[in-house]
């Protein structure tokens, strides 16, 4: 457990809020007049907040993970009291003191639980390895069956024409997607659902649909000849099909890279009440990008250990694949706010994207850290142009005004995701201050 010596900024606290309403409610609790018994140690912050009930709510936050506890009945996690408490602490209004009994008890309980969990994670017995190998074999068979069925369906469709999908096609695609779920191939199912969302949308929907489905076809085809593929590419195909890689294996065998990792962008996306957080990292010395994924059901806290705009010293373990990008944090130190980093030109970033795409044809987004770009008008929207005059369009239908206001026409360093519909800015640096967009 590392002691949290660097005080957090309010932005970092707000990033923990499960949604905007919680952030607002948390801010309303961040008034010292509502609290009593406030205190902090290097590991935790605690206090009692006067609520609508008779007894004040006791809230406590363990800072390292962070973990939250509050006696209020809210099902939000962290609740507004925990957020308000952290905001007060971030504002320097909570002073060091010895933890009261209820805080100490909870922290000890957590430590004991963590130890038990470590014990459980000890090497499994040979018998269970055998059983899991059989399970894995069964699943591989089912996925291969699903992939063959999808190939069949797609070639049939290509023969009779995608034009037929314009009426009722979205439902048909979703039905096929459901069959892929049954075949335990969530990667194929996800692609089909994306395709279902494209039908009839926009002027160029047939082109977009053809791109999505043809890549899915190639994926399904690759599934049937996994054995012939080079190991790395086979891993990429397996990942795209939706096979998960055991994180213990990644930690054990994955490519380990130690560096000062800049957290250049954080993007949250909600799907079926599950929030996926994509955290993009870039190594200061290696220049390598990495993508750390974390998941949380709605209303639960997302991983806050990699705050946007901070530098985290540590070691990553990359997942296997032909174009390794996804990684997990093996070891990390304390995040420190980062000054404006050196980025790349548009041409260099596009080059890196092309190389990554050659290794992983199913790559759908690629990180870019663009140095000193200026905003420009492009068609009905905006583009970012580098010093060489090379520009990339910003995704349409998004609010780019905060970024535009930060630049006001002047060069600015931007971290973004490059997607098929354009550049999606995630963070930028304004006078050495990182701003999450």
């Amino acid at each position, binding site marked *: 457990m590392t002691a949290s010596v660097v005080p957090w*900024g*309010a932005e970092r606290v707000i990033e923990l809020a499960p949604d905007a309403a919680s*952030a*607002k409610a948390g*801010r*309303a609790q961040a*008034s010292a*007049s509502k609290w009593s018994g406030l205190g902090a140690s290097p590991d935790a912050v605690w206090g009692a907040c*006067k609520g609508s009930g008779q007894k004040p709510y006791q809230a406590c936050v363990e800072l390292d993970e962070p973990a939250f506890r509050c006696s209020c009945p809210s099902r939000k996690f962290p609740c507004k009291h925990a957020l308000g408490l952290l905001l007060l602490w971030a504002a320097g209004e909570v002073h060091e003191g010895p933890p009261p009994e209820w805080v100490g008890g909870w922290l000890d309980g957590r430590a004991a639980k963590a130890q038990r969990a470590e014990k459980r994670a000890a090497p499994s017995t040979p018998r269970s390895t055998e059983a899991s190998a059989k399970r894995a074999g069964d699943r591989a068979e089912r996925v291969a069956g699903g992939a063959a069925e999808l190939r069949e369906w*797609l*070639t049939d469709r*290509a*023969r*009779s*024409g*995608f*034009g037929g999908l314009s009426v009722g096609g979205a439902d048909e695609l979703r039905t096929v997607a459901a069959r892929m779920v049954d075949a335990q191939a969530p990667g194929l199912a996800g692609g089909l659902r994306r395709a279902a969302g494209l039908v009839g949308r926009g002027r160029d929907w*047939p*082109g977009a649909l*053809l*791109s999505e*489905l*043809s*890549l899915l*076809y190639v994926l399904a*085809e690759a599934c049937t000849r996994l054995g012939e593929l080079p190991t790395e590419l086979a891993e990429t195909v397996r990942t795209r099909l939706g096979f998960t890689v055991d994180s213990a294996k990644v930690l054990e065998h994955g490519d380990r890279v130690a560096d000062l990792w800049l957290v250049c962008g954080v993007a949250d996306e909600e799907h079926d009440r599950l929030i996926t957080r994509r955290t993009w990292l870039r190594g200061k010395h290696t220049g390598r990008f990495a993508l750390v994924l974390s998941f949380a059901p709605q209303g639960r806290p997302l991983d806050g250990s990699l705050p946007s705009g901070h530098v985290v010293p540590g070691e990553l373990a990359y997942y296997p694949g032909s174009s390794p990008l996804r990684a997990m944090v093996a070891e990390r130190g304390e995040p420190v706010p980062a000054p404006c980093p050196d980025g790349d030109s*548009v*041409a260099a970033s*596009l080059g890196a*994207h*092309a190389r990554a*795409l050659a290794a992983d*044809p199913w790559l759908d987004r690629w990180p870019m850290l663009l140095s000193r770009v*200026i*905003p*420009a*008008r*492009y068609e009905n929207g905006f*583009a970012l*142009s580098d010093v060489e*005059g*090379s*520009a*990339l*369009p910003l995704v349409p239908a998004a609010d780019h*005004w*905060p*970024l*535009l*206001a*930060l630049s*006001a*026409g*002047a060069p600015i360093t931007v971290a973004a995701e490059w997607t*098929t519909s354009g550049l999606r800015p995630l963070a930028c640096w*304004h*006078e050495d*201050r990182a*701003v999450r*967009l």
Partner: protein
Amino acid sequence: MKAWEELVSTALLGTQRRTTDPAALPPAVGAKVETREDPAEALLATAALLTNYRRAGQVPLSGTLPMPVAAPDGRPLIRPAARERLARLLSANRPELLDEWLGAVAAAGLRVPPERLPALADAARARISLRAPLVAVAGSAGGWLGEHNPEWTFLASPIPDGDADVWRYGNLVQRREWLRKALAEDPDAARVALTGAWRGEPAEVRAGFLGLLGEHLRTTDEPFLEAALDDRAVSVRQQAIGLLGTLPGAALGHRMAERLRPLVRVRKRALRPDVLQITLPDAVDTARDGVRVPAGPEQGTGWLRQIVAATPLAFWAEFGLPPGVLRMPVEGCAAGVLRESWAAAAVRQRDEPWARALLAADPGGRGAAALVGALEPRARAAAVLDLATHVNAETMAKLILELPAPWPRELGSALLGWVAAQGDQRVVAHAAVVIARSVPPSCLRAVDPLPEDAAPWRRALTETLTFRREMHEELV
């Protein structure tokens, strides 16, 4: 790309009905699919290759038109605590506090993080009073946003320094700003510019400019205001009458006094107070001086009200000092009519002795708040505290709601003391809301924590006061 469009057409129709010419493909792509025999499989494989061929081969846009660069803004950014405060203000829907906060940021010579400007601009779209302080706070970045986002044009009013062309060619916001500055910094030039442009301006613009002039009025402005009494527009004439009423010794006041003289007589009585005998006017030649009352049974009273309100209060000196005049019985009209007209005159002419006398004669009267406002700022606190000893809490609470802003410091302290001593009543709770947001920042001091069982309104008062105190402290 032609080959791609061909492929999409084939995919739409189906390979049973249409085929694509493999020779049209880029050679690198064609070579990879020539072994495919089934045309449907070949189509899908080709499409996948071409998709990534195009994605990987994406060239950057060139020749996009860069946007102009805003002038650098050297003011320091607000501190992190104030940034967090802004987030709370934007989410809390307390626009009056946001107003105050923006004003304080501008006064402190600070600027806000630019990424917050769009949210502030959206707030100012809905609430016009936020616009002027926001323009000051947003600085050059705000002007830049106003030029590029048509919904925020109100931000785009950069004032080129000392440029007289702004007065001639600028938009209305810019011209008003120019005049406001010039009236303060170069009053003579401002008046030359104003009289020069006067006749060509539309009526509502003339009225607006006159309002600005009124904030910097000098006795030498009387001829200009007299001329405005003949203006085509009612709004301008009304404005001119109001301003002339505040000018001591103005000819308008003399003309009103002449009209009033034949209407007032004193009937002496032995051993009892003299009586003010009022004759209601039956015809008045006052169209030019703005005295207009619709015909009807109340026309005479209406005329009297307007004439008394526009007559310098010095007129009454021959009948005694204000308290004495107020004690005289009245005949010929209701005593209240005279009293209300005197109150209107006292407020307009900022006549302290009359305001004091009127307050003393009728502490709970309807116009009491305005009369307090007519007193010199430092005297208002004592006047209000004196009123508090004469009227009940309900009347005081109503008076507080109407007290003109801004409150001087002494008044703020006095009312904080008053409200702390009150019991839990609904009217007091209303007044507490006004007090919480009206006391000037200099009154905001750390307050003792309330007992656990304090009433919600008292809690809200403490919270608002604490919030405001902290927000000002963060901006130092």
